[in-house]
């Protein structure tokens, strides 16, 4: 937990500066706090604390709850670490927004909203036109395009509407509903069963409410009821300019996952398989799909074949022996579908004796995670450690001698390696006493692997390393403060001669260094997404 909190602090510091980070720090360290406590711990003045909290709330990181204690209402603030961690992925989300080919201007809109935490269509319009300074004849046309794109992003659930209640912490909302339900049913001392009934009802309510909130039409209806000015809206323009929207991270997480799956297919088979897999995932994706979904819906072979263009030339990379004539496009696609089905990772699964396929996200992600774990172990402990891991995952619990004989390794080497893995937390030990007394000589020591524990172990390493990268970046920047000032001055004066050759060399090294850190960070964020979010 310490590593995550440290990382969150760095992220907020990077994005919002020192003072916001100060407020975030106390919330991270002490958990939920009242305003008074925040003030006591940060020693900041009331005004800046208020401002900071507003910033954090605007960016969906802080939630509040009003609690009545002894007839006084106290407002508690709570920082959601997951929201903070998600900020690291913003770069990736932007990159994915560029691939939303069916929505014009998607990158511009997504960029605006990510920049502001949440935003309205009005905001996008004014921002865009202020920036571009376009008041020409195109402006109305552009406005319609933006509106249309905005609406499409909502329809495809890339944007989610936010309301005032959304800033109340989810837990508190639940508690409140629970209390309400108890009062309604006039239960003073509810039994366990009654309680679980109430909870499951609230759970399903929340789930349904989510769906309703996401639906654009329903949203429009609400507006028609609530505000008179919107009655004038045309049927095709259902977006309320003043409703706030935020980016739906889940949709982008799904896109990231799909990209990773396609890349995995490319790694295991070839580029053409990657192309086919990407198309399949595109077809399988719909606005309502959830990242937790274990399996996609059924996709027919015809749909898949149609979706893959002839121009992709996937047939160039497959060698048919014994077929003289040129195979047809359908036949080649069929071959790739088979390759994807037959691969050990089981990219797609064919429904028995029908021509339809499904993607098993859950198993695929497990495979990808295991693969990441294997490359990690390989780099850290050598390739024999991967061998031991795979022996233990396929065979279950084994003692040292068995491992050595399967791995064809000497017993002393095996013992040393297993010991290292044990210290690293990647293998577990199970003692099985032969007799009632537990003397070591009369006990079997069996090793086994708990993959989920391994992943947890890796994630915590990832968080620690990400924190280190931030820290190192701060350090590298700090030691070059003079140089950076010089550079900024030179840029301001538009005179590159202000920099000496030595300065230029130093800047070159500095930029290379930053690039390296940024790239490492990006790759780690991708790994973190796979390990923590893709189930």
């Amino acid at each position: 937990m310490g590593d995550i909190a440290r990382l969150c602090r760095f992220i907020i510091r990077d994005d919002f500066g020192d003072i916001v980070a100060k407020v975030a720090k106390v919330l991270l360290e002490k958990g939920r706090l009242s305003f008074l406590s925040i003030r006591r711990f940060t020693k900041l003045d009331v005004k800046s604390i208020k401002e900071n909290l507003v910033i954090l709330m605007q960016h969906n990181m802080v939630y509040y709850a009003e609690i009545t204690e002894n007839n006084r209402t106290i407002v508690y603030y709570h920082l959601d670490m997951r929201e903070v961690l998600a900020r690291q992925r913003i770069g990736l989300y932007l990159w994915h927004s560029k691939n939303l080919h069916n929505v014009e201007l998607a990158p511009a809109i997504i960029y605006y909203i990510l920049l502001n935490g949440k935003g309205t269509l009005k905001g996008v319009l004014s921002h865009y036109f202020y920036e571009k300074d376009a008041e020409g004849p195109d402006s109305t046309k552009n406005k319609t395009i933006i509106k249309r794109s905005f609406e499409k992003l909502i329809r495809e659930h890339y944007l989610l509407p936010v309301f005032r209640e959304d800033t109340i912490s989810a837990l508190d909302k639940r508690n409140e509903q629970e209390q309400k339900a108890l009062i309604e049913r006039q239960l003073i001392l509810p039994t366990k069963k009654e309680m679980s009934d109430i909870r499951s009802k609230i759970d399903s309510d929340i789930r349904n409410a989510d769906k309703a909130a996401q639906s654009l039409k329903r949203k429009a209806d609400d507006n028609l009821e609530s505000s008179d000015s919107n009655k004038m809206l045309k049927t095709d323009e259902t977006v309320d300019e003043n409703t706030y929207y935020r980016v739906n991270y889940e949709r982008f997480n799904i896109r990231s996952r799909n990209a990773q799956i396609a890349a995995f297919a490319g790694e295991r088979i070839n580029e053409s398989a990657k192309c086919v897999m990407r198309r399949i995932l595109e077809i399988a994706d719909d606005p309502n799909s959830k990242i937790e979904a274990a399996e996609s819906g059924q996709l027919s072979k015809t749909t898949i074949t149609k979706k893959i263009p002839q121009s992709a030339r996937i047939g160039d990379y497959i060698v048919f022996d014994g077929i003289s004539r040129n195979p047809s496009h359908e036949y080649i696609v069929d071959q790739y579908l088979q390759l994807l089905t037959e691969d050990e990772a089981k990219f797609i699964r064919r429904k028995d004796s029908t021509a339809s396929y499904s993607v098993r996200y859950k198993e695929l992600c497990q495979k990808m995670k295991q693969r990441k774990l294997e490359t990690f172990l390989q780099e850290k402990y050598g390739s024999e450690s991967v061998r031991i891991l795979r022996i233990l995952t396929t065979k279950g619990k084994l003692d040292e001698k068995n491992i050595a004989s399967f791995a064809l390794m000497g017993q002393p080497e095996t013992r040393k390696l297993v010991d290292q893995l044990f210290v690293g937390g990647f293998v577990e030990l199970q003692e099985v006493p032969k007799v009632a007394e537990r003397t070591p000589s009369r006990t079997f020591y069996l090793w086994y692997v708990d993959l989920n524990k391994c992943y947890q172990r890796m994630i915590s390493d990832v968080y620690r390393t990400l924190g280190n990268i931030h820290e190192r970046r701060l350090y590298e920047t700090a030691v070059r403060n003079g140089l950076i000032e010089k550079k900024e001055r030179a840029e301001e004066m538009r005179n590159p001669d202000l920099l000496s050759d030595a300065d230029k060399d130093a800047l070159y090294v500095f930029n290379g260094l930053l690039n390296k850190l940024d790239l490492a960070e990006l790759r780690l964020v991708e790994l973190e997404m796979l390990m923590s979010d893709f189930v």
Partner: protein
Amino acid sequence: MSSQRPNKTSQKLVEKSNFTPMELKVYQFINNNQISGESAETVVGSLNIKMKDAVEIINKLSRSGLIEMRVQPDNTITYYATNVRDIQDETDFDNDEKLVLYHIKTAGNEGIWTKHIKTNTGLHQSVITRSLKNLESKGIIKAIKSIKHPTRKIYMLSHLTPSEDISGGPWFSDQKLDVDFVESLTEAVYRFILSRSFPKGNPDAVYCTFHPSYPTATQIHRFITESKISDVELELANINSLLDLLIFDGKVERKITVSDAALYDLMEEDESSGEIVYKAIRDHKSRGNALTDVPCGKYGGVVSPSSCVYFRKWLLDY
């Protein structure tokens, strides 16, 4: 091997003992053919005795340890006269030594641990040590080491080769696992599979699903034997364990071939058409791991990232 030629001494020994002439005759007959042994049928045929008698005589000879039974590859059973050279000078040994020798002899090519000799004979440790020393100095027995119990002192007759359980099979030399041998052989197997897993020319191309030339374990075995990569004789089971190793290493995957027709006709599930073949997995190790590419993931340890030397080295290393 000395056991392959007829042995005068053992014959004398047989003559000395109280065997019937017929039994002696059978023994001599078997003793004369040390190369391929004699089956019960040939004994009956050449010596002109009844099958029932022949069986009785063979059983008696076998019981007294003068002949032994071996099963030939074609499942026929033949009998060989045992080599009794080691007991030729039995008269030279005292009773303790004879007793110890008897137990070593019965243990065959599995050998026997000194502690077991002690429990079996009931002799005092010092007596056993002395007897073993004497027998060993006369070259009748030898001490061997077992891979299962490296610390145990195990004895067996000097002319026998230890069984695979003791020696560990082809992977072991001098009771130690020959890691380099295993590694290089695995590499050879991997290269063979790799060479047949991907089309040549284009590095990104794949074979179609009904590609026939993925090798089976038998083919790999044949390749290893014929290419004379190693002098050690390997069996199919050994090759299989190498293949398992490659699978555990994630370098090779196992596939079951299904004929093209069977794929399209799933109703007709013909299990027998499947054959297990091996295919190499594309090597993408160079991609590395996001975590271990950063020094923190690789080395760990508690140092400040600002002052970490690994970090410095990594950042300045272009």
